């Protein structure tokens, strides 16, 4: 696999990128091209059609379908209020009257003659979509979407949980510190906490109580994550979790330190407003969690590094990081890219590369076990 898609998580001090904010259905766009927006500002709005609720009336009233149809007090297309009588039935020669009242307000969408069931469309629900990022509106699709251009820093994590959040970055720990309650102060409400590794459940709980909305840490372990989420995570498909703090992990699971480049950049951004999203989907064309901070920083690169990675693959001289034992977390530079497969310690034959680590040691590693940095 010469053109192997080596994951190169993007760590860009300054870049330009575009975010599309799209409604799931037709609605209205609240901004115009050229507008400057901030992350909390609503940019689109729509009315989501209400759910269709099936009212199984024969089952509820304990009568036959024909009896339901004969006793219906409503018609298709009719608007009804909660409590309105939908069906009335007289039993025992008219001595016992029973009714079925509408459990909701809505519009009668259908009445099925075979089953006596009724489809009630509930009222629509308003949906607002915020900008998520600070930037400039560069294009709009009427009734549908807004494209916002952002200039600033962009960092991808390896794994995250929780959805979009917008708040102030607050560095609370050094790169290699184990996070503890001592790192939390009273001034973290609405903040995205940055630094350290291995938060435990108590840390997350206290941070949540103090109003933090995000955490960017080097690593985490199973138990605090499981306890905080309330369930065990078996698949790296995340983003919809109902949690107060979105968590972004930059390195992985276990006792791992921050990559210096990532931590240094985050530290430089301390105090700035950031947009983060823990959504992760580890598949081909993976979605990784992200941190986005808009601002006018010195331009370092304006290039989509993923595109470069995909097209060029690994080359001699490239800086890499190893992501598997026995060299997990080590950084180095590629010094050789042999064409032929070689036998590695596991006994398997694999495409390998040789890298000079920061310690000066030259090691052989499978090409798929490195990330471009």
């Amino acid at each position: 696999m010469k053109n192997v898609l080596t994951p190169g998580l993007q760590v860009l001090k300054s870049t330009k990128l575009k975010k599309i904010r799209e409604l799931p259905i037709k609605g209205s766009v609240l901004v115009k091209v050229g507008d400057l927006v901030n992350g909390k500002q609503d940019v689109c709005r729509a009315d989501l059609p209400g759910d269709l609720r099936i009212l199984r009336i024969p089952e509820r009233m304990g009568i036959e379908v024909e009896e339901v149809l004969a006793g219906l007090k409503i018609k298709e297309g009719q608007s009804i209020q909660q409590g309105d009588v939908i069906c009335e039935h007289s039993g025992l020669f008219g001595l016992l009257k029973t009714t079925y009242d509408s459990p909701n307000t809505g519009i009668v969408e259908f009445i099925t003659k075979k089953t006596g069931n009724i489809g009630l469309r509930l009222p629509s629900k308003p949906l607002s979509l915020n900008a998520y990022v600070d930037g400039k509106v560069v294009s709009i699709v009427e009734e549908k979407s807004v494209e916002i251009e952002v200039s600033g820093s962009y960092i991808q994590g390896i794994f995250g949980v929780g959805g979009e959040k917008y708040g102030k970055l607050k560095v609370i720990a050094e790169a290699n510190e184990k996070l503890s309650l001592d790192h939390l102060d009273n001034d973290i409400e609405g903040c995205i906490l940055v630094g350290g590794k291995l938060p435990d459940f108590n840390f997350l709980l206290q941070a949540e109580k103090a109003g933090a909305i995000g955490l960017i840490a080097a690593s985490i372990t199973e138990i605090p994550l499981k306890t905080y989420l309330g369930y065990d995570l078996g698949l790296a498909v995340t983003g919809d979790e109902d949690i107060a703090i979105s968590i972004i992990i930059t390195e992985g699971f276990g006792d791992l330190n921050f990559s210096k480049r990532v931590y240094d950049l985050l530290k430089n951004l301390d105090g700035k407003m950031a947009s983060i999203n823990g959504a992760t989907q580890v598949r081909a064309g993976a979605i990784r969690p992200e941190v986005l901070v808009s601002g006018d920083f010195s331009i370092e690169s304006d290039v989509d590094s993923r595109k470069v990675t995909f097209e060029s693959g690994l080359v001699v001289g490239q800086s890499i990081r190893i992501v598997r034992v026995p060299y997990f977390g080590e950084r180095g530079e590629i010094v050789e890219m042999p064409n032929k497969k070689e036998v590695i310690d596991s006994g398997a034959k694999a495409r390998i590369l040789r890298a000079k680590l920061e310690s000066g040691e030259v090691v052989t590693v499978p090409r798929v076990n490195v990330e471009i940095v």
Partner: protein
Amino acid sequence: MITSKEDLTTVLVTDCGSTTTKALLFEKTKSGWRQTFRGEAPTTVEKPVADVTVGALNAFKEIEELSGRSILKDKDFKTPAQKKEGIDLYLSTSSAGGGLQMLVCGVVKHITTESAERAALGAGGIVLDAVSADDGREDFERVEKIRHLKPDIVLLCGGVDGGSTVHVIEMAETILAAAPRPRFGNTLQLPVIYAGNKNVAKEVEEILSEIAKVLMVENLRPTVDKENLGPAREAIHEFFLSHVMSHSPGYNKLLAWSPVPVMPTPAAVGDIMRTYAEKNNLNTLCVDIGGATTDVFSVFKNKVGEFIFNRTVSANLGMSYSIANVLIEAGVENISRWLPSDVKDSEVKDRLRNKMIRPSSIPQTKNDLWLEQSVCREALRLSLEHHKSLAVGLSGVTQQRGIASIFSQTSNRYELVDQMKLDMVIGSGGVLSHAPERLGAALMMIDGFSLMGLTEIAVDSIFMMPHLGVLSSVHPEAAEEIFLNDCMVRICHSIVPVYKEKATKKLNLARVFVNHKEVGIVIKNKIQRVDIPEGQVCEIRVEPLQKSVDLGNGQGEKISKTITVAEYGLILDGRNRPIRNTKNELQNEIYKELGLL
């Protein structure tokens, strides 16, 4: 392109998997049809590339580099094949983008819904959910669940012909209320296949036509004792091509490249496997353990001697994306028990979760390899349990059943898959096909499938079965030739007596004879290997040494069979089934005995 098999000399086949697109070159050589070159590249069906043909072209380039054959000119194939240029035919299978994702809905869980599941799975689908009127969920729960699924196709059935009508219509109403949106094609109507009670077909269509494109086919369960899965399966394939493939990123180009329809990968695997099993009269089990899912295929004789094909997908049991899910479902202690040395639970968990978030990485050390192989054993165990629960026979009536189905059966369910009667197991997927030691792959299958009796163990060398499945639709003889010569690697035969623990006091369980000469004794809780020259056709006989020992013919009964000896001869396994008391020390001994340490 050439489609007449007599004129074919060079065929290029891809399998566009969820992670990797694998291209194989098949050529007619002096020694017959052979698989000659292989190229692979990351699949590019998802963003940022979002065009499946980019990955395919990258894989072709690798084949060009390795073979020296120039295949492409300006992203078009050069045809027909010349000496070192061009190809005659291009074929493909696909499971990219998560494969064919289906929702099945029926009325009774163990009757119509289960039949619908078999139809969907046999056609190569992944069942996102199986909804039935008696599944224990409230109406709103079903609506909520369906609403959040994005199926490619919905298969709705229920009610035998002339039977239940109300529940079928109610199920249609539930789908209407949920109004799930198809995964691909924003403007596309949801494809729904209705294969239920014909008496309410009109009402079902009326209800669903607002949100779906409804295709009516024959009832897949026309009576309680009959299954008729063929029409539903054909409809699934039709929708797969017209509504799923054609709307997936880049597939329009891919479909135009080949004169033969693109097949769902599992359906292609099923085709080649069923052909082989029926031709050789073998009860066969095949597993493809991938990164996200594990597919299990079986071809087993039913009670009236017909071969019945079944396939199941364990959607979240896999070796990379889903590896942490195997950890959750199996439990860390079940994974750790297969390791030859003790590793801390926390380390096992962290390593597996790191594999989950970096799914392309591979083990570099032996210890890391053994951990993944331990996970594999548990994934195999769990997926076989799942398969056995769905691969059932409906006893009594002789009927017809195609690769995905076409059969009818009576309603008394019984498990078709019986490890004691299993003749052959074939493993594929990276962890098995690319295991550094073939015996390591065999041991994973012996342990994970809890093999019993006498079973031949093989692996698909480079997961070629999908390619051969689609090739067999054009040139079955070439496909079979390559299957035997290049695809299937026969590793060994395992001999596993099963015994009553308390009644079996002595250590020696059974004597093994090859051509009437004793070659070994199966000893309680020991594994040994008996070396016999590969390729030798011989008669193997195993005689129990204690009355309580069963080798497949009943307690105390001997077994005999003619076999062709595989590369690593015989494995005599004296561990009783199910394997419960495995500890690291015992695993260490086994690894040593088999030369895996």
